[in-house]
């Protein structure tokens, strides 16, 4: 089947800057929400080192995820998968991506809902919060990627300012308690590596790139943009883990459900200025909203292309229901959510979303190159 007969559902274009903002917010929100460098393993006071380590691991995976997209700047992963390995195998591979988008969007939403339920809205039923976010995300996804891009433009400054403010407010306390960061790297590299596993595999979020690159107005730059977003997000992660570990203490901090949030709650800038957690919460809500919108867009577009539909938008309604239900039912309680984020469970699982489809596609690409065929032409 020639390439141009695939449904071109959209001619939307987003600026490189907007792509950067989306990717930055999407990752930063989740990695600081429950601070996996500190809570998922035994890195304790070396959590900041795990954060630095996670940058390198994640950067490697970004190359794997986005590298092919740059080779096929006009096509989404669903399209080039079918080109590289044939129609039906390509479609089957694409379903893995769809599944990944589903799980990631549902998990992000669920973490956010759990935080609100634990901290603020104790009597609000879980589905209510989940579906509010799903509805907001669906409307954004229905409006298209350009709209999500503009929303990212709008929310990014607020998001960044909120995080920077939280960190600045926390600085005096963190300096007072900086002894909690010692001893530095006393237990070798093992804990650092274990702590970095979860933040590395959270990069599975950037699978969104496989669907978004064709819509970027400079697809060739998308890989660089993704790496810059990752860099920015890693800087924030390192700072947040330093400050949070100092203030909450390595041991107590690693036992918290939402360490960054708990840290911000303890701040008492003066008698008149406390309760600054509202900044962190704003940032969180905005970040989740952008993330979920992008995943819904990517997921529904992927499904539309697999099914050969010309428009992804009719799919958003039914998919939103599945998403919300999944967020509600895939985890029964906080314990299951925490269990899921153990390195030995989420690690291989999320890694398989990246490695299996991308591995097969890269292999096909490589073979076609070696056998002399031009991989970007059938």
């Amino acid at each position, binding site marked *: 089947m020639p390439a141009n007969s695939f449904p071109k559902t959209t001619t939307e274009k987003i600026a490189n800057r907007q792509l950067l903002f989306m990717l930055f917010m999407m990752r930063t929100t989740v990695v600081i929400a429950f601070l996996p460098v500190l809570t998922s393993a035994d890195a304790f006071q070396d959590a900041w080192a795990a954060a630095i380590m996670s940058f390198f691991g994640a950067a490697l995976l970004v190359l794997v995820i986005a590298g092919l997209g740059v080779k096929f700047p006009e096509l989404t992963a669903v399209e080039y998968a079918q080109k590289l390995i044939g129609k039906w195998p390509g479609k089957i591979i694409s379903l893995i991506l769809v599944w990944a988008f589903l799980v990631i969007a549902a998990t992000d939403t669920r973490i956010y809902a759990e935080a609100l339920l634990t*901290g603020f809205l104790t009597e609000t039923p879980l589905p209510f919060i989940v579906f509010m976010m799903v509805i907001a995300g669906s409307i954004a996804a229905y409006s298209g990627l350009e709209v999500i891009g503009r929303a990212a433009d709008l929310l990014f400054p607020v998001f960044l300012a909120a995080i920077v403010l939280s960190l600045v407010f926390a600085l005096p306390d963190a300096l007072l308690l900086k002894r*909690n960061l*010692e*001893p530095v790297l*006393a*237990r070798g590299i093992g804990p650092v590596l274990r702590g970095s596993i979860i933040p590395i595999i959270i990069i599975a979020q950037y699978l969104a790139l496989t669907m978004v690159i064709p819509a970027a107005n400079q697809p060739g730059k998308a890989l660089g943009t993704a790496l810059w977003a990752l860099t920015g997000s890693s800087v924030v992660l390192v700072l947040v883990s330093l400050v949070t570990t100092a203030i909450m203490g390595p041991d*107590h901090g690693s036992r918290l459900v939402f360490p960054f949030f708990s840290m911000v*709650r303890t701040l008492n800038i003066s008698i008149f200025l406390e309760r600054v957690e509202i900044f962190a919460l704003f940032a969180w809500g905005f970040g989740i909203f952008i993330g979920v919108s992008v995943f819904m867009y990517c997921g529904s577009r992927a499904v539309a292309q697999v099914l050969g539909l010309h428009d992804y938008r009719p799919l958003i309604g039914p998919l939103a229901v599945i998403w919300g239900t999944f967020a509600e039912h895939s985890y029964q309680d906080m314990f299951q959510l925490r269990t899921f984020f153990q390195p030995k469970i989420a690690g291989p699982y999320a890694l398989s979303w990246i490695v299996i489809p991308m591995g097969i596609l890269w292999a096909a690409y490589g073979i076609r190159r070696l056998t002399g065929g031009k991989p970007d032409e059938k």
Partner: protein
Amino acid sequence: MKNRLAALILITAAALTLTGCWNRRDPENLALVLATAFDYNNETQKYKVIAQMANPIAMGGEDGGQTAGGEKKPYWTVSADGSASHQAMRNLTLKVSREFFWAHNRVFVFSESVARNGIYPIMDMSARERQLRASAHVAVVEGDINILMESEFPLEESGAMGIDRQIATIIYERSLFPEKTLNELYSTLSQPGVEMFIGRVKVITVSDTTAGGEEGAGTSETPTAAPPILIGGGALFKGDRMVGWANEQETIGWAYASDRVFRSMLYIKDPVDNKTPIGIDIENLESRMHPESGTEGPRIIVDIKAKGHLHDIPVDRDLTLESGYIKSLEQRSAQEIRNAVHSTIDLSRRTESDIIGFGNLIYRKQPKLWEQIGDRWYDVFKDIEIDVRVHMNIRRTGLIASPLAAEKRR
């Protein structure tokens, strides 16, 4: 037009629902808790919670507050029992007409009996409970905790505000109140080689105040006019159990060694006549500790650099640089600081409660060594050499350069 209507409905629906509020809980119908106290009864093995709530009717303000709430106290104190701290807190509801709201709680106080029994169960509850904030001040009460919670502070609206302000004032003015918030206690409790040190609030009973003579008519007036509490000193813990009290000297020693001095003062004897008290205000103090491996095991160096100014010098002395008088004042002050730190170290050794965190210092700087000695730290701590080096610098004399000559003062 149709689109506009749809958008309007959508926006209204979003505005109403996206806040996520499921029900109504008006702030004016809540009982705002300002201070919470915990007591433990060893016989019944029950926790007792005493909550002090703001009374909005009396707190109302200038307009009408005088007439409507004139007879009512601006706060109200209620207590309840329970086998666990949270159960006791829930049992409070049986006695109060409004729903409790704990987010404005500013002060957490523990009675001596609950402190000696272990405060971790309460710390656990307060970290779990979303409304309580770890930024509240924490104190251990010496004396009757019920009197503390009922006591009135002449300058403040409520007792809780009084305790809170007084603690903050003592921290900044005298540095006689250790540890800051519940949150810091957590990180201290979870770290190896350092123990919790919580500030002391002492309830002054009538017998303490030197009202003395006029027992008959005066007594009804005295309790309200006298200061209700005295803040200063601290409670030493081993693990989560209190093991002893530190007096003010031992507390300031902790502050000197732990670099927690905002302002402090020293009184030393005049080096010339060895009698006249000379007052020195410490305006800045920095303390650094580091371990050194000496010939017989580790050695700890505490380096303290203090800066201050003369405050009281009622005798005629030559304050010029050449006379060396200031130098000897500096030496005496340094000795005074050293004595205070050593008194704290002695107390730590006696009670086996390493509140300054010398063990923690070794854990942080020499983790390999800590692995060997961590388990028997208090045996090591008994004989470990701790070298306290103090450098005092008196920089100013206040607004007068030298005191009035003796012969002019008659």
